[in-house]
């Protein structure tokens, strides 16, 4: 026989349940704009009923319900989607790093331009041609030396720009390594809390949101693999070594490489490198922004630098070979034209020729015979412009420079394209996640009404039962009064 107060109990459960459901809705609405927030869903379930004989006339027993409860609060989440987001984050980060660095290389070369290195090369050779026509002219000699200095300045600006960029990239990698280490510590701390809370039977949903957010950011920075182990803890691997396990972190160390143009120390494979702090072994980085930046720092940048330096040295050698054999206006012979300092890596016009350095432009060797009106040597130097002097005699100075620019353009374009592609992929996964786990305000408002109405009805139910009991308690048994 059921209790006369069961109805009140059902009403009480309904009131509490819908109040709790309203709390969940309120939490969702409050966090509608919180990054990484995964919406919660109150899972309502009927409480266990009990079987009663419904009366003599009925063969089958019926079940009387006992009301409702919040069975659990679900975190609406898809682990597979989250791992896709991390994976495409790693790839996107790689190309973003490359794109970022290569754009800066492009800015250093500054081509195509009306005032770039290519233009300075054209003007330099034109000045030799002018000198071939008027070898006696001091103003034309001065103009040539000025053009030569301008060209040297462009070369020096480019090599210095590339060397500075290598240092800036090292700086950028350091910042990111610091961020990786701090994210790793954050994740480790969250692991500890999550394990603790899970152990006492609670669901640390908000902590999990935060940890997923940290892991997603980490995946943009470096190639990681993350998987959950027992107790709610997450293990994070870079390569096949663990960055985070439980609440312990194996930090990363970064060693800045040697400046561009200088040899990599013996025993090292790459200039700039990341190593594990526990045993100093190299970190196997396959992606993320750090991966992209390292690729450019250790691979692309030294190649471009070498190209420019090869061009400088070949130009110096070819011009000096002709120049030292010729004669100056004053009959002098044997002066070098360009000097390249291997220590400071600066190209300069020989001070013997540069009036600003106490030199004399009449020593520019335009003549092959020593006669003032002979510009044959200048003509020979001017003709170097189209001579196949580079890459084993297959391409001219200017052709070589054009190839370098084309290579750079192709690399940077590929990076820009890949960024677009992987942005779209990541965007797709993020959209899917947003649609599954994000808060929809209208939906929450509708739920708000649903639970509010249910609460109102439950309250009404309590009133009804109360009236019923009032009738029973106060309205009955008065016959004998």
């Amino acid at each position, binding site marked *: 026989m059921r209790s006369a107060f069961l109805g009140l109990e059902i009403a009480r459960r309904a009131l509490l349940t819908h109040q709790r459901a309203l709390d969940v809705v309120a939490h969702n609405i409050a966090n509608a704009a919180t990054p990484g927030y995964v919406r919660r869903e109150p899972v309502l379930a009927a409480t266990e009923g009990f079987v009663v004989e419904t009366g003599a006339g009925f063969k089958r027993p019926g079940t009387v319900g006992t009301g409702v409860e919040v069975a659990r609060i679900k975190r609406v989440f898809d682990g597979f989607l989250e791992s896709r987001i991390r994976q495409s984050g790693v790839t996107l980060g790689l190309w973003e790093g490359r794109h970022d660095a290569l754009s800066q290389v492009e800015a250093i070369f500054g081509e195509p331009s009306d005032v770039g290195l290519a233009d300075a090369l054209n003007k330099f*050779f034109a000045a030799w041609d002018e000198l071939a026509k008027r070898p006696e002219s001091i103003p034309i000699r001065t103009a040539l030396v000025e053009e030569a200095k301008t060209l040297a300045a462009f070369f020096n600006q480019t090599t210095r720009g590339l060397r500075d960029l290598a240092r800036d990239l090292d700086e950028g990698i350091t910042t990111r390594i610091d961020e990786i280490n701090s994210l790793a510590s954050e994740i480790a701390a969250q692991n500890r809390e999550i394990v603790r809370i899970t152990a006492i039977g609670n669901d640390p949903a908000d902590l999990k949101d935060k940890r997923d957010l940290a892991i997603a950011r980490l995946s943009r920075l470096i190639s990681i693999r993350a998987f959950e182990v027992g107790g709610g803890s997450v293990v994070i691997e870079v390569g096949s070594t663990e960055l985070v396990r439980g609440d312990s972190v194996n930090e990363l160390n970064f060693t800045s490489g040697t400046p561009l143009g200088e040899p990599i120390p013996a025993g090292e494979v790459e200039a700039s490198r990341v190593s594990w702090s526990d045993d100093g072994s190299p970190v196997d980085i396959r992606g993320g922004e750090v991966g992209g930046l390292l690729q450019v720092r250790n691979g692309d940048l030294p190649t471009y630098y070498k190209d420019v330096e090869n061009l400088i040295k070949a130009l110096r050698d070819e011009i000096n070979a002709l120049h030292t054999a010729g004669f100056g206006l004053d009959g002098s012979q044997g002066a070098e034209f360009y000097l390249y300092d291997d220590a400071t890596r600066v190209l300069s016009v020989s001070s013997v020729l540069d009036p600003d350095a106490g030199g004399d432009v009449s020593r520019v060797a335009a003549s092959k015979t020593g006669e003032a009106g002979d510009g044959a040597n200048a003509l020979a130097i001017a003709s170097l412009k*189209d001579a196949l002097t580079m890459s084993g005699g297959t391409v001219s100075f200017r052709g070589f420079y054009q190839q370098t*620019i*084309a290579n750079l353009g192709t690399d940077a374009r590929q990076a820009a394209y890949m960024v677009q592609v992987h942005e779209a992929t990541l965007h797709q996964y993020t959209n899917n996640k947003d649609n599954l786990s994000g808060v929809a305000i209208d939906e929450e408002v509708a739920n708000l009404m649903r639970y509010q109405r249910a609460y109102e009805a439950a309250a009404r139910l309590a009133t009804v039962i109360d009236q019923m009991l009032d009738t029973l308690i106060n309205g009955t048994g008065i016959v004998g009064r």
Partner: protein
Amino acid sequence: MRISTSYLLNNLTRDIAEQFARMQRLSEQISTGKRLRKPSDDPLAVSRALAIRALKAGVAQHKANVDYAKDWLGATEGVLMKAHDVLADAADIALRAANGTFSDDERQAFAQEVDGLISELLGLANTQYDGRYVFAGLRTNTTPFSLVEDPADPGYPVVYQGMDGSREIEVEPGTIIQVNTNGGATFMQGVAAAGGRNLFQILTDLREHLLEGDGSPTFQADIADDIAGTQAAQDKIMNIVTGIGAKIRRLGRVSGQLSENEVELEALLSKAEDADVARAVTELKLQESVYKAALGAAASVMQPSLLDYLR
């Protein structure tokens, strides 16, 4: 399908930003007129543009070289034409002296006239153009011809202190021409038809013969030699002038070719790196309407909420 609020807002802001960036790129193309700003915009086109710029610089240089060569050759030609006139005048005097019967005083006057012609020819041979001696060969800073005035030697020999040599410039890729006319070869080399005498010797001989007068038994024969000599000298100068004229005409053709090349290269360069402004403007207009539509769509999607309808 379930659409979350953050999905909606993220996508709207992302799309609007993308449309705006596209509009930005187009307006940049229009304002700069350039399609290529950095190598990655179009690596092939950028490398082509650099190559075309190098070619253009080459053509401009060759044009400057052709102009210079034409000026120099023209100046040389003018001087040689004047030298030809001087020789013609000398021939004239010789003819007159041979035909008429003149007094010694009159022949003295002829001799003085020839003397004047000698210094005129000397002056022409020492002509400067662009601050340089035209006929000095490679020794363009030194006065090439001078008269050694030695009273003991009435021949007044002319000495050449220049240095014959070829002054060359490139006027087309791979085509190098000599622009100078060597003074030694022109004025000092013996002319076979004039008995191996050089131009100055022919004139000084004429002057000597006029001064000697018909007191000399070989006067008529000498003067006849001188007449033949001056004519041979004129022929020599004419030959050189003809050669220079041919060179100038050839350079005229090269110059026309170079101008054509310049126009072609300009067009190629423009095609490689310039923005198609008309198309960019049209695209910008289209993009503008797309952008406005995106804003409008965003406004109408973001505005209504269930909350607006609940009371």
